């Protein structure tokens, strides 16, 4: 491995949701290319703590790209410069010695900052609560192999189901639209036989809640798809729109 690097960090600091935030500069010295981006921040934070300064707050948990808890806008891009990974999977070998790295929280009206780089994404949960499920109770369901699902259909549904709810799509979109996130769940369910009975009710409920949460509208710029760490396809949005209009004009009795 090549030697270590020194970086200049420009980090958004904001003590709480009411306070006005600003950028603060920090030096990250002796950064190993094998470190993950969050490990680099850990090291900076440990230095801050030693100096008695409040560490930079950011959300994270699994650090393997699956829980969706980490975020960060890095040099203008959600989850940093690389395609198809989350911030926790980003490694410092993607940066160069001497580089300045600007780190900001997700910016969207529906995602208010809690502190520093951590934002409130509970709007996503509320959208899921209105319809992101199949209404079955525990017990009394048929044998798992009672319904055969063609493999291509199952695979397609799986692709939509891999959304980790990170919010990068919203952060990437100039309108802060949540269409990619919502359409991923709507599509998973619309593709599977289990999702059919509530298909039209679901899409209406979820889209309505999405609008109430203050997410912007979709103008098909595709930034969401480009920045999504799980490569959720924009075709999900088309599928959702189709179902939404079908629900509105032809399937009111099923809503």
């Amino acid at each position, binding site marked *: 491995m090549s030697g270590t690097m020194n970086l200049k960090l420009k980090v958004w600091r904001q003590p709480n949701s009411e306070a006005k935030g600003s950028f603060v500069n920090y030096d990250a010295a002796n950064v190993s290319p094998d470190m993950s981006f969050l490990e680099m921040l850990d090291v900076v934070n440990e230095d801050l703590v030693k100096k008695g300064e409040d560490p930079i707050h950011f959300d994270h948990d699994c650090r393997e790209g699956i829980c969706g808890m980490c975020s960060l806008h890095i040099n203008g891009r959600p989850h940093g410069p690389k395609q198809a990974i989350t911030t926790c999977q980003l490694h410092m070998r993607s940066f160069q010695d001497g580089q300045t790295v600007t780190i900001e929280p997700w910016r969207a009206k529906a995602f208010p900052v809690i502190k520093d780089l951590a934002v409130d994404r509970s709007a996503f949960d509320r959208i899921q609560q209105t319809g992101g499920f199949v209404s079955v109770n525990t017990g009394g369901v048929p044998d*798992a192999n009672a319904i*055969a699902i063609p493999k291509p259909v199952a695979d397609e549904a799986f692709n939509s189901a891999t959304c980790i709810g990170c919010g990068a799509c919203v952060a990437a979109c100039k309108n802060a639209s949540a269409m990619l996130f919502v359409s991923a769940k709507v599509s998973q369910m619309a593709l599977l036989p289990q999702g059919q009975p509530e298909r039209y009710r679901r899409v209406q409920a979820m889209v309505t809640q999405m609008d109430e949460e203050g997410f912007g509208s979709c103008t098909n710029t595709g930034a969401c798809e480009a920045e999504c760490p799980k490569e959720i396809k924009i075709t999900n949005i088309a599928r959702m729109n189709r179902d939404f209009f079908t629900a509105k004009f032809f399937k009111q009795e099923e809503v």
Partner: protein
Amino acid sequence: MKLDAKIPEGPLAEKWSKHKFNLKLVNPANKRKYTVIVVGTGLAGSSAAASLAELGYNVKAFCYQDSPRRAHSIAAQGGINAAKNYRNDGDSVYRLFYDTIKGGDYRAREANVYRLAEVSVNIIDQCVAQGVPFAREYGGLLDNRSFGGAQVSRTFYARGQTGQQLLLGAYSALNRQIHEGKVEMFSRHEMLDVVVVDGQAKGVVVRDMVTGEIETHAGHAVLLCTGGYGNVFYLSTNAMGCNVTAAWRAHKRGAYFGNPCFTQIHPTCIPVTGDHQSKLTLMSESLRNDGRVWVPKTKELAEQIRSGKIKASEIKEDDRDYFLERKYPSFGNLVPRDVASRNAKEMVDEGRGVGSSGVAVYLDFADAIQRLGEDAVRAKYGNLFDMYYQITDENPYKEPMRIYPAVHYTMGGLWVDYNLQTTVPGLYALGEANFSDHGANRLGASALMQGLADGYFVIPYTLGDYLATIGPKAVDEKHPAFAETKKAVEDRIKQLLSLKGNKTVDEYHRELGKIMWEYCGMARSEEGLKKAKKMIQELKADFWKNAIVLGKNEEFNQSLEKAGRVADFIELGELMIDDALDRTESCGGHFRIESQTEEGEAKRDDEKYAYVAAWEFKGEGQPEALHKEELKFENVKLTQRSYK
């Protein structure tokens, strides 16, 4: 207090059915008069909260992440077992039961494990009904793969993201109940204590992690579904926030801790690269279906690899030692985890380790790629290979993966009876937080099964019995126990915030981890454990003098959160060491070097140690008291485990 596991009478296969019939029921109209507190929203907590709410109970659910969907269960990769026998390869409830008891090296309760195997089939049905997209075959039916410790294919999976898909299924059921108003969800809330009123659990004290407000919540029962404590080792495959705090606080309020030293070290993880390392990443056990584990035959060759003179792919077939296949011909690369891990360590100790540090062995897919083609391998394991590449910058399609064991799972946990109740009435533990089903070693793909079994199919029955007994009278939040417990939590926070020393909490955590890994990890000895006990006591004293904890309570304060968790880990560490000292036999993942067979395998001592060690907290600074639950084996014969 005498431990009563409340195992029902009767033949093994009938125990659960009979027990369900004998349990008291709460009538449907009365259910809405009860409130149940569920701490944790992983597989165990989400499934329990949703199922109880569907029955009509009011549920309050808590998690420390910003959303219930992010619980650590989300990270499970490989799969979930179920005795469906869809393959017609000889599987049955009895075989899954038998494999699990044997895999756990005969240190689990027969009755619990049988029930687990029995309800496993319902789990798959439930998940499919929710829309969980399990892997399917071209005929449209569900696919299976094999996991360690079994000779049948009974593992259901969703690419390398099984935990994610199962949790999103349980999360969707939970969301439906939140929407119905039956579950009140509290995200970013950390539970810091249990409120015990007249010997019964009646509530919790939690901290709102955004505002710092300390709240009390009352309920007729409290379910801890708070996961495992692998992070006591600092480096583990667990998520960064995984902690023992909820379980440890409950322990201090009277819940016995079962088999704390039983830890699982997973054989296939990405090796450590440096001091900055914050966690380790698992490479799923499913990879051992197709990957072959090897090291060079000689130390000299290994040395050439370590210094970068030659590459793995340049080593001739004859110069490779596929040590698992050589030593265990019938299970080969699919031996249970404890066996695979110890063997990897042995190779490294012999000087045949690879990678620049020498602390790794190979997991090689060259044969599989030749046999199946690169695309087929990508379809099965693509996301794992990508993850490996992201972390190491090496292409596993070209060069073998480097892997090494890492802490992964804790079989130990709060002691529970057959009803999943701890020694505190009204306090239950589900999922990884309890000690129940895996004995001294958990088989792969069985934790997801257990979490969902506990939440969907066990607790909805057993909890009703307790609730019917205590009756629906509202819990009085004015009882002084609530204020007292809240005050205790506030005092401890004040004490933590007063620490203005010179060492970071992370430094203490790393030190603790080093002690635990060195002396209470893959190999344990009396001498080492005694030394470690002293080191931990010193570490604890030092922590409460010299740690740095910044900020105030009334804010989002990650410094304070971390400090509270590490303080609890330090105390737990000492108990794990006491437990490891007490058990002078080896069994499963607990390897006492004083107790091994001539071939170096774990040697049990069934005469003396066929018990569950349940530890009782006796007060600060007091030694804990050991209670023993004898394990009776009426259906399986205890033999030395053999995977040869």
